[in-house]
């Protein structure tokens, strides 16, 4: 198992290298001149030329790429922001906790509600409870998150004056962003859970558990849910990967200075070191969450676990 994890981590370095190459190349060939944008509207041609030199943009593609890869992968330095002249990593570390907090809380919320709703719908298959729950899920899926965000601001901030509409501060600033980010996921997880629980509902081992005299809710949570978990884990993994990249829209609406908003602003101001660092970080986070998903599969299913074990257990007849 340890060997497997090490192998995957090594593979991750390759993924990050490839991502670096691609994002660098795309930004390099993007039309327009970052030096002009950074130097400002009033700068003379000479100023811009100066700026290009300072930013290293007068070097060749290969030289610039080499510099970027060297500082990122050998010196572990993500560079300085062109706009603010400060190390990108410092700013990211300040912003990351906010994004993670929103993302992880939203995920915990949509996992819990999604699974509970899915199980509730599945155990009432075809009855009105099922239609009602899945109806809710449909509504959640169909409402765009920015629209829900605006409606919530209208209701809870503008009308009821209960929650702050934007910015950061205490926990109350995060309530609406978390709920808005969670809504879509709740619906996805509820539908996924319902479908996979129904898939194992009629399995023979469920009948076996019933024949043992096991109680209904222990059968559902102890036998059905673990067996229905694979597709649910996959969708959790997808949600997890999206957490950091996830919520530029929500962060914009609620003016939360998180990673998503950081990248969005950097793209607008052509602050390429920031864009590159964010993209790399997203790639890293996605690769980690994919690894976690695979480990979770192995945790749940002994057959997958066995495949990772180097010493293969004997199969006895």
């Amino acid at each position: 198992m340890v060997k497997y994890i090490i192998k995957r981590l090594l593979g991750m370095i390759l993924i990050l290298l490839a991502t670096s190459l691609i994002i660098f190349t795309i930004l390099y060939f993007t039309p327009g001149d970052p030096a002009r944008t950074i130097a400002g509207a009033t700068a003379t041609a000479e100023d811009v030329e100066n700026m290009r030199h300072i930013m290293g943009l007068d070097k060749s593609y290969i030289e610039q790429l080499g510099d970027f890869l060297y500082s990122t992968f050998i010196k572990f330095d993500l560079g300085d922001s062109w706009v603010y002249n400060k190390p990108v990593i410092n700013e990211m570390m300040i912003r990351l906790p906010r994004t993670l907090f929103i993302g992880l809380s939203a995920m915990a919320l949509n996992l819990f509600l999604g699974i509970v709703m899915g199980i509730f719908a599945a155990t009432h298959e075809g009855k009105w409870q099922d239609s009602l729950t899945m109806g809710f899920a449909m509504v959640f899926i169909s409402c765009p998150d920015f629209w829900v965000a605006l409606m919530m601001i209208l209701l809870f901030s503008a009308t009821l004056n209960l929650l702050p509409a934007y910015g950061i501060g205490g926990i109350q600033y995060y309530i609406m962003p978390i709920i808005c980010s969670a809504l879509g996921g709740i619906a996805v997880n509820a539908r996924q859970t319902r479908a996979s629980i129904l898939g194992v509902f009629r399995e023979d081992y469920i009948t076996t558990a019933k024949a043992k005299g096991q109680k209904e809710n222990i059968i559902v949570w102890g036998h059905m849910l673990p067996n229905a978990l694979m597709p649910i884990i996959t969708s959790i993994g997808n949600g997890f990967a999206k957490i950091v990249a996830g919520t530029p829209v929500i962060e914009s609406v609620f003016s939360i200075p998180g990673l998503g908003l950081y990248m969005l602003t950097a793209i607008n101001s052509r602050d390429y070191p920031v864009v590159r660092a964010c993209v790399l970080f997203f790639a890293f986070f996605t690769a980690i969450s994919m690894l976690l998903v695979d480990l979770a599969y192995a945790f749940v299913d002994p057959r997958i676990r066995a495949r990772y074990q180097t010493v293969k257990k004997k199969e006895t007849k």
Partner: protein
Amino acid sequence: MSKADEVFLKVEDLEVIYTSGKKNVQAVNKVSFELKKGQTIALVGETGAGKTTIAKSILRILPNPPAKMLGGRITLEGRELTSLSEEEMLDIRGGKIAMIFQDPMTALNPLMTVGDQIVEGLLLHNDYDKDAAENRAKEMLELVGIPKDRFVEYPYQFSGGMKQRVVIAMALACNPLLLLADEPTTALDVTIQAQVLDLIRNLKEKYNTSMILITHDLGVVAETSDTVAVVYAGEIIEYADKRELFINPCHPYTNGLFGSLPGMTEGESRLKPIAGSPPDPTDLPKGCAFAPRCPYVMDECIESKPDMKEISPGHFCRCIKAGKEI
């Protein structure tokens, strides 16, 4: 404790349908039989006859929907199971009545160790703590011929025959009064069928468990059962003592099944296929369900359903010709 010849399990007029779409499958139709303490009744009949449905209705574990028990009474040691609450049934299931399923490959939860699956039932029906339950589970594994250190292994690490042994260990762990064995060897290699069957028989003897044995194998019926019920299209069409049935089968269908059984030699003991196929269970004929395939069919057979007749003490048959020479 009931006396040896007292009726232990009584099934009366059991009626079960499956609703699929607009159609109703008449799976079990007015089935009645009795079982004495320590005895074995064999249910024989073609696939789809309703045998599994009968067994599952005793435990009340039919999938609902689509299954629905329309009527009937099931009494175990004088207690009417059909009127128990769901909570009371939890004690019966696995405690008083246990079931061995047809397909061992799918009967075990793939994500739980076999040990935990045996322990699960033990904890439900005994005052064991975790250690005691584990010891008992290991004892049961050894009893069915599986080394106890395989307690921590998962179903995928076992072959079909061993899985069925685990299922048997699980079923018998709580010393049930009644064992429902639904074709316990059909899914297994011929080479291990006999072993598994011996195992069930020995354990049953040891604990004086009563058994309902569902099987296709007349050799098994001959060796294992005391009484036999022949099931056709959801009905019992003949019901008698094993010896009586083998010597004197009355119903043309039983005759067909048992027909030309030359002294019950090994390998020749499978049920004989009979020309034609069972009637559509969503649209059963008005008269005798076997009439369309019966070589002796008469007008009367098609018009009305024959009653169950007692042609000699304890030998019942649902055929107008029963008791008369064919």
